[in-house]
């Protein structure tokens, strides 16, 4: 059965788009039929991170408004044929999305794909609530830092009240994805520890993605990090998170603290990055 998963956070810039692309690609690399949908209308970026920015003809708003068919708007990934993108509109605003239109499209996507990953815009407004509206599960992207954790708590509240599933009295599974995690800073007490975040938010941990320059390299290249450099630490962490999302029980790998010396900086990068 198709799983519609919203990737959300409340706070901006924590890694939702990066995570949507990486998880989507990892699920597709495992053989599933996957679509990643950009709900950030007006500020789309998922197309850039996926490297499909030159090929967008129609977008989510065109399909919602009936100007294009879904099949015409889906952009197939050049590297993975079972991975598709539905881009957001760059020229319209969030009000261009209607609740009924989004419901219809999610319904159509359910018929075509095994996984539908919805990249939510930041905030708790219309765009974010529409992105989560029809989800079966949520990935809550959080950084180990006070304002991000607070906003995640807020989003968890919305997931438990404003989604179709919650309104029908169902339980919305929520997974915590801790991103941009710097083990060194956590060890030095400059960043919240994994246990702290888990205790405060009390939702199960999907994975810990280390802060890494591989993520920047991947977005420069226009490839999800799991495709750009599958052996890198963030790619492996995303691949593991994708497996957990599929229901596999695997131990969460704790990122190792980075060695601080100049030697470590020069030669230790690969090991941690």
């Amino acid at each position, binding site marked *: 059965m198709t799983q519609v998963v919203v990737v959300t956070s409340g706070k901006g810039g924590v890694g939702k788009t990066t995570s949507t692309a990486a998880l989507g690609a990892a699920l597709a690399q495992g053989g599933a039929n996957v679509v990643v949908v950009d709900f950030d209308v007006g500020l789309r970026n998922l197309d*850039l991170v996926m*490297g499909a*920015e*030159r*090929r*967008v*003809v*129609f977008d989510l708003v065109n399909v919602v408004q009936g100007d294009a*068919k879904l*099949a*015409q708007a889906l952009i197939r990934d050049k590297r993975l044929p079972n991975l598709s993108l539905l881009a957001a509109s*760059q*020229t*319209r605003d969030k009000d261009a999305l209607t609740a009924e239109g989004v419901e219809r499209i999610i319904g159509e996507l359910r018929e075509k794909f095994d996984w539908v990953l919805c990249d939510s815009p930041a905030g708790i407004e219309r765009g974010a609530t529409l992105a989560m509206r029809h989800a079966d599960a949520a990935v809550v992207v959080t950084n180990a830092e006070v304002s991000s954790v607070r906003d995640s708590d807020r989003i968890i509240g919305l997931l438990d009240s404003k989604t179709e599933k919650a309104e029908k009295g169902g339980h919305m599974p929520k997974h915590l994805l801790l991103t941009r995690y710097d083990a060194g800073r956590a060890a030095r007490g400059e960043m919240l520890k994994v246990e702290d975040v888990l205790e405060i938010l009390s939702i199960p941990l999907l994975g810990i993605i280390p802060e890494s320059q591989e993520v*920047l*390299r991947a*977005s*420069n*290249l*226009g490839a999800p990090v799991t495709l750009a450099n599958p052996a890198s630490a963030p790619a492996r962490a995303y691949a593991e998170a994708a497996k957990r999302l599929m229901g596999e029980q695997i131990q969460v790998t704790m990122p190792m603290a980075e060695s601080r010396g100049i030697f470590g900086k020069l030669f230790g990068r*690969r090991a941690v990055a």
Partner: protein
Amino acid sequence: MNLLALFRRRSTAPIARERLQVLLAHERVMVGGSDLLAVLQEEILAVIGKHISVDRDKVQIKLDRGDPVSTLEIDVEVPSLLPTGALARRSELAAARR
């Protein structure tokens, strides 16, 4: 990791720069929501529609915004019973650079 790999691994920023230049060049001329390629696409379909009835579901449009040229590829399925021999089954157009 050898040194060569270290140097090779450095060079993603120029790729990012080039991707952005191409993208933004296209996005900036898109003021008022009308994009030359989108206009071309609509008009081409309208012209084809004058001669045969086009089922919008059977039209595939592919676009590649590039530099120096963009390509717009419109793939129209034409029912075989119609006398459409003259009309190419696939009209491929290299849209003009802007």
